[in-house]
């Protein structure tokens, strides 16, 4: 991967880039929320207004998907969403490292979700009923089989969360790098800097056209993907948590039908 991706401009010695830039994201978010909530007003203006609108969006999504019970999990969900969104968008700034284009960051987020929704489900229903639910509403002979299948499908959830975010982000970065490579950007820039007048004219114009095409066409796409992937991560987290909460009612419904 190092062959096509430029290292970020700011690196701490001995610390991996994605950890450094995770800290940067944390500092940005913490500073924003601190500045916005330092002087709270009843009629919000400026930054406080912006953050309140943002959190109301999260709240509305939670109300739609999880119902009124979901409000308790707003801190977890909104923190994950804001962190992933900021990390995604930071990967688009030239010279900064993308936090979410590293597998480890995404795996950390997905494991937090995995542990959290099992914990919430077990707290809500008790450990034994929660485990019993994995067997599903099937005849007794099939229950061991269902249990194993369900365990595997639950183990696949953090894997798919991790790989979806990672693949989308890295795929976008590689697409950008390959487009620049195919258009010969470094050759054009070298031509522009070579000193000869025709080289400077052709290389300069070609380089500007290349960059304009890429920024005008690919960057909007990547910004859309950054928002979409953060949205999908948050939405799946909400679905998993609400699944863990509501499982008891569903199983009763099913047993009533049979």
């Amino acid at each position, binding site marked *: *991967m190092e*062959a096509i991706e430029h290292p970020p401009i700011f690196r701490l010695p001995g610390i991996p880039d994605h950890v450094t830039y995770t800290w940067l994201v944390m500092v940005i978010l913490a500073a924003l929320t601190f500045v916005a909530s330092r002087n709270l007003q009843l009629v919000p203006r400026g930054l406080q207004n912006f953050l309140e609108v943002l959190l109301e969006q999260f709240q509305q999504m939670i109300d*739609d998907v999880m119902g009124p019970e979901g409000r308790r999990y707003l801190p977890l969900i909104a923190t994950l969403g804001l962190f992933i969104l900021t990390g995604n968008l930071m990967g688009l700034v030239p010279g900064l490292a993308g936090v979410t284009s590293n597998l480890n960051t995404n795996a950390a987020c997905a494991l937090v979700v995995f542990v959290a929704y099992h914990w919430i489900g077990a707290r809500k229903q008790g450990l034994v009923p929660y485990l019993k639910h994995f067997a599903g509403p099937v005849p007794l002979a099939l229950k061991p089989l269902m249990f194993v299948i369900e365990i595997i499908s639950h183990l696949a959830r953090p894997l*798919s969360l991790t*790989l*979806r975010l*990672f*693949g*989308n982000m*890295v*795929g976008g970065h*590689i697409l950008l790098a390959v487009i620049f490579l195919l258009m010969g950007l470094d050759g054009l820039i070298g031509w522009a800097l070579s000193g000869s007048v025709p080289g400077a004219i052709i290389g300069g114009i070609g380089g500007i056209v290349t960059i304009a095409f890429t920024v005008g066409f690919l960057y909007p796409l990547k910004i859309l993907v950054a928002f*979409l992937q953060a*949205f*999908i991560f948050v*939405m*799946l987290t909400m*679905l998993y948590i609400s699944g863990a909460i509501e499982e008891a009612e569903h199983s009763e419904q099913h047993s009533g039908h049979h």
Partner: protein
Amino acid sequence: MRRSLILGGLAVLAFPTAALAAEGGTGGWIAPFAVIAAGIGMAIAAGLCGLGQGRAVASAVDAMARQPGAAARIQTAMIIGLALIESLAIYTLVIALILLFVKGINFA
């Protein structure tokens, strides 16, 4: 016709092996096959993912046109479904990236 195609394909696949064997075994035969596998696998995955997502979007747009009041909920469900379908292609992308970029895979 079909047999000649298969033979041609086998010859193409066997060629890097022969070329590398003549060079004296630098690199082995994993790397060229990894590039071929990454390209073909990504092509198949992208094509089938496009078919699946096309069906999903077609149904969702149909439903939205029939019932514009429920458009927001249908759109949310559609985006979740698209993400789940897309993740299958993303798995192939990750495997392709592993094949292309991870050095020192030793299958022997």
